[in-house]
C-alpha cells in the first residue's frame, strides 16, 4: 500500500516506540501534523521551539530513550538550535524533525527557507536533508539508531514539504547498516591487562564517574567494581546519581564547585580511572597542574575523547558497561587504608566550613532550601535545573542516589533548560515526583512553557531561587572584577502573580519557617505548582576553583564564618 511521506514518518516513529512528541506546527510541516491525527502519538504543543528541544532532551535523560521534537522550517527550526546544541554537548539521544520548503525551491530563498542542515552540522551527531518520500523510512531508522547507539547525541532530519506529500510504498528496514559507523563495544584484552596492572599497584586511586556511566547503564557494575577494588568514586556534574551519594566510597562532585576533599583526592591521587567522562575544563582546572602524580586509565566509547584534554596512560575504547564488566573478574580486592584516612581528614575540614553548619540566621539560603527539599522528598525526586549558582547548590545538596534523576545542562550550560526539561522528564516518568530548581534569570528565558505545563497538566513543581541577580556572573564580578557589578541586577516580576495568571497555584516564601509548609503545599497539590523563594542576594558558591588555578587551589568559605 502506498502512503504519503508524512504517514511514513509516523509509521516509523510508532515503530521506534515513540509515544510523545514535543513540537510546533507551521507552513512547512503541515502535512506531518495532518497525518499525526491518525497515529497513537501524543503531541505536546510548546510555546517556543527551544522548549520543545529541551523537553525532548529531558525526556531522553529521564528515560534513556530517544526524545523527539518537531518544528517547521526557517525560524521554527532555528529556534531549536540552542536545544540541539545542549543535547549535543551532553550526548543526549534525541531526534529533531523539521519541515523544509519544497525541494525545487531549495536554494531560492523561499519563504521560511533556512539551511537547517548547514546550521546544525556542527551541533548534531549527524543530520539529513530528505527531498523524496522514498528516503524517509531508511533515514528515520538510521536517525534513531545513530541517536541512541555509541556515544548518543542529537540527529536532525529535515524533510522537504513535497516529500511529506508524495506517496510511495512503505517498507521499514529490518536493520540499519552503516558502512562508516560501527560503535565499539569491547576493549582489547591486552589493554585491559595493562589497566589491571596499574590498578594493582595503585596506593591512592580515584574513580572519576561521568555521564557515560549513566548512558551505558553501567551504574550497577560500576558499584560492584568500586566495592571490589575498594576505590573511592568522584562524580562529574552529569555523573551525579551514577553512584549513590550516601555510599561510603562516594566522594561527591568534583570540579570547579566540587567538594574540597574530592578535588584534593584527585590532585593527590596516583591513579585516576576515568569512566565515561571527558576531562572538561570545569573538572580539571588548569590542565598543566591537573593530578600531576596520577596515571590515567580512560574508558570512553568515543575515541576522539582519548588524549583530547588529558593524556591517557591506558586508553580503553568501548562501551563502558561492557568494559567494566570485562574488568571486574580481572581485578582483586585491595586495601587503601592510608588513602581513606587522608581523605577523611580532608573531609573533616570541609564539614567545618560547610554552610550546613551555620546557625539559623533568619535568611533563606539556597543550599538550605535544596537540603530541605531533599529531606522532604526523601532524596527520591527527579530534579532539573537551569544554569548558575542554584545549579551548583542543587548539585551539592540534593544528594542523588539513583541515575536519570539529575537533569542539568552541563556542557552547554544553557539557561532556560530547567522548566522544559522537567516537563519532558515528567512525560518520561509520570509517576515520579519532578522538581525544577531554577534561578530568576534562567526561569524567565523559558517561562512561556508554564502554559504548556498547564495545558498538559504536567505534575511539575517549580522552585524559583530569586535573588534579583544573575548570581553566578555577580559572584565572578565580586571575586574577579573588584565587585564592579555590570548588568547583573535584575528586577523580576511577581512570579506568584505570573503563576496565578496561568492558573498555577503558587506561594511566595520569604522566611525559613515558611519553607517546610510551602514544600508540603507543592507536593500535596496535583499538577504544576510554583514556589518563589526570596533568597539571600549576595551569596557565593564555595568551594570555587578560579580560572587558571590548579584543582586543589580552591577559594573556600572562611572557617571563622562557621559555627
Amino acid at each position, binding site marked *: 500500500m502506498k502512503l504519503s511521506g508524512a504517514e511514513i514518518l509516523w509509521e516509523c516513529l510508532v515503530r521506534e516506540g515513540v509515544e510523545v512528541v514535543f513540537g510546533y506546527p507551521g507552513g512547512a510541516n503541515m502535512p506531518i501534523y495532518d497525518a499525526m491525527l491518525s497515529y497513537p502519538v501524543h503531541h505536546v504543543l510548546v510555546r517556543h521551539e527551544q522548549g520543545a528541544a529541551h523537553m525532548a532532551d529531558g525526556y531522553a535523560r529521564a528515560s534513556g530513550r530517544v526524545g523527539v521534537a518537531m518544528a517547521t522550517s526557517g525560524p521554527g527550526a532555528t529556534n531549536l538550535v540552542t536545544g540541539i546544541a545542549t543535547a549535543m554537548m551532553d550526548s543526549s539521544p534525541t531526534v529533531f524533525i523539521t519541515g523544509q520548503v519544497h525541494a525545487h525551491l531549495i536554494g531560492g530563498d523561499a519563504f521560511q527557507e533556512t539551511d537547517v*542542515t*548547514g546550521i546544525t*552540522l*556542527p551541533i548534531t*551527531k*549527524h543530520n539529513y*536533508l530528505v527531498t523524496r518520500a522514498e528516503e524517509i523510512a531508511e533515514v528515520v531508522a538510521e536517525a534513531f539508531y*545513530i541517536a541512541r547507539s555509541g556515544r548518543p547525541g542529537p540527529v536532525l532530519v529535515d524533510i522537504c514539504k513535497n516529500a511529506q506529500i508524495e506517496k510511495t510504498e512503505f517498507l521499514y528496514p529490518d536493520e540499519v547498516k*552503516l*558502512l*562508516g*559507523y*560501527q560503535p*565499539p563495544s*569491547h*576493549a*582489547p*584484552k*591486552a*589493554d*585491559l591487562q595493562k589497566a589491571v596492572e596499574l590498578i594493582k599497584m595503585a596506593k591512592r586511586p580515584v574513580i572519576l564517574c561521568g555521564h557515560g556511566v549513566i548512558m551505558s547503564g553501567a551504574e550497577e557494575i560500576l558499584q560492584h567494581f568500586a566495592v571490589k577494588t575498594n576505590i573511592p568514586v568522584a562524580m562529574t556534574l552529569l555523573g551525579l546519581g551514577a553512584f549513590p551519594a550516601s555510599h561510603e566510597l562516594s566522594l561527591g562532585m568534583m570540579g570547579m564547585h566540587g567538594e574540597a576533599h574530592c578535588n584534593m583526592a584527585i590532585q593527590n591521587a596516583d591513579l585516576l580511572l576515568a569512566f565515561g567522562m571527558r576531562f572538561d575544563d570545569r573538572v580539571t582546572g588548569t590542565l598543566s597542574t591537573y593530578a600531576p602524580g596520577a596515571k590515567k586509565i580512560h574508558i570512553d566509547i*568515543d*575515541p*576522539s575523547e*582519548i*588524549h*583530547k584534554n588529558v*593524556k591517557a596512560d591506558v*586508553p580503553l*575504547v*568501548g562501551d563502558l558497561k*561492557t568494559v567494566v*564488566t*570485562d574488568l571486574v573478574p580481572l581485578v582483586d580486592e585491595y586495601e587503601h587504608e592510608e588513602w581513606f584516612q587522608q581523605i577523611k581528614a580532608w573531609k573533616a575540614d570541609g564539614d567545618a566550613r560547610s554552610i550546613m553548619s551555620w546557625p539559623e540566621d533568619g535568611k533563606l539560603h539556597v543550599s538550605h532550601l535544596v537540603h530541605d527539599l531533599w529531606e522532604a522528598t526523601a532524596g527520591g525526586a527527579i530534579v532539573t535545573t537551569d544554569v548558575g549558582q542554584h545549579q551548583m547548590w542543587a548539585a551539592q545538596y540534593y544528594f542523588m542516589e539513583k541515575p536519570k534523576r539529575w537533569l542539568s545542562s552541563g556542557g552547554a550550560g544553557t539557561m532556560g533548560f530547567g522548566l522544559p526539561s522537567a516537563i519532558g522528564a515528567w512525560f518520561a516518568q509520570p509517576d515520579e515526583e519532578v522538581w525544577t530548581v531554577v534561578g530568576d534569570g534562567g526561569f524567565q528565558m523559558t517561562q512561556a512553557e508554564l502554559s504548556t505545563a498547564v495545558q498538559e497538566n504536567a505534575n511539575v513543581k517549580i522552585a524559583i531561587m530569586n535573588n534579583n541577580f544573575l548570581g553566578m556572573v555577580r559572584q565572578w564580578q565580586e571575586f574577579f572584577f573588584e565587585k564592579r557589578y555590570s548588568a547583573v541586577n535584575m528586577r523580576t516580576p511577581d512570579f506568584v502573580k505570573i503563576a496565578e495568571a496561568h492558573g498555577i497555584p503558587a506561594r511566595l516564601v520569604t522566611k525559613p519557617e515558611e519553607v517546610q509548609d510551602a514544600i508540603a503545599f507543592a507536593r500535596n497539590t496535583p499538577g504544576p505548582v510554583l514556589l518563589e523563594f526570596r533568597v539571600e542576594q549576595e551569596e557565593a558558591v564555595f568551594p570555587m576553583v578560579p580560572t587558571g588555578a590548579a584543582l586543589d587551589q580552591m577559594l573556600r568559605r572562611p572557617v571563622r564564618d562557621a559555627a
Partner: protein
Amino acid sequence: MQYTFIALVEDKPGVLNRVASLFRRRNFNIESLAVGRTEKSGVSRMTIVTNCENDTDAHKIEANLYKLVNVIDVQDVTRQPSVTRDLALIKVKATPEQRSEINNLVAIFRARIVDVAPDSVIVEATGTEDKVEGMIELLRPIGIMEMVRTGQVAMTRGEHCGIRRTPGANGNGWHPEEYVQVG
C-alpha cells in the same frame, strides 16, 4: 609539520562539507584537499594535507574524522612509504622565440606542453610537491599568467598502509579474537 591523511568516505551529498567543517570546527588548517571516486562504487577518496604540531594533533584529526558517520576509513600516510603527486596547469607567456626555452625546461622536469596559443603555452607538470614547485620557480621569470593545482594525492607503496591511531574505530584494530568476550 605537514601531515597527509587518506580518508575513504561515502559518496553522498554534503560529505565534503562535513569534512571541511570538521577542520574548521576543531581549528586545523587544510593545506590541500583532493577528492575523487575510487575503485568501489559509492566510495570517494580524499587526500587531506594539513599542518599540525605533532602526533597528538594527528590523532585528534583522525579520531574526529571517524566520528563523521559518512567516513569509512582514515590513514595517516605522512611517514609511510608512499607515492604522492600534485598536478599543475601553468599558463606561461611565450612568444614564438621563447617556446624552445620553455620546451627545454619542461623536458628536464618531465612535464608537457599541452596547449599552444599565439602568445602563451600551457604546461602540465605532475610530480611531488617539490618537483612542481621547482618547475613553477623556473617558469616564473618567463611570466606565469595563470596557474591551477590539484593538491596532493597519495597512495602507499606495495603492501604498506598508513598509520591508524584510533583504537576501536571502524575497521581499525578491530580484531574480535583479541577482544574479551563477556561470559
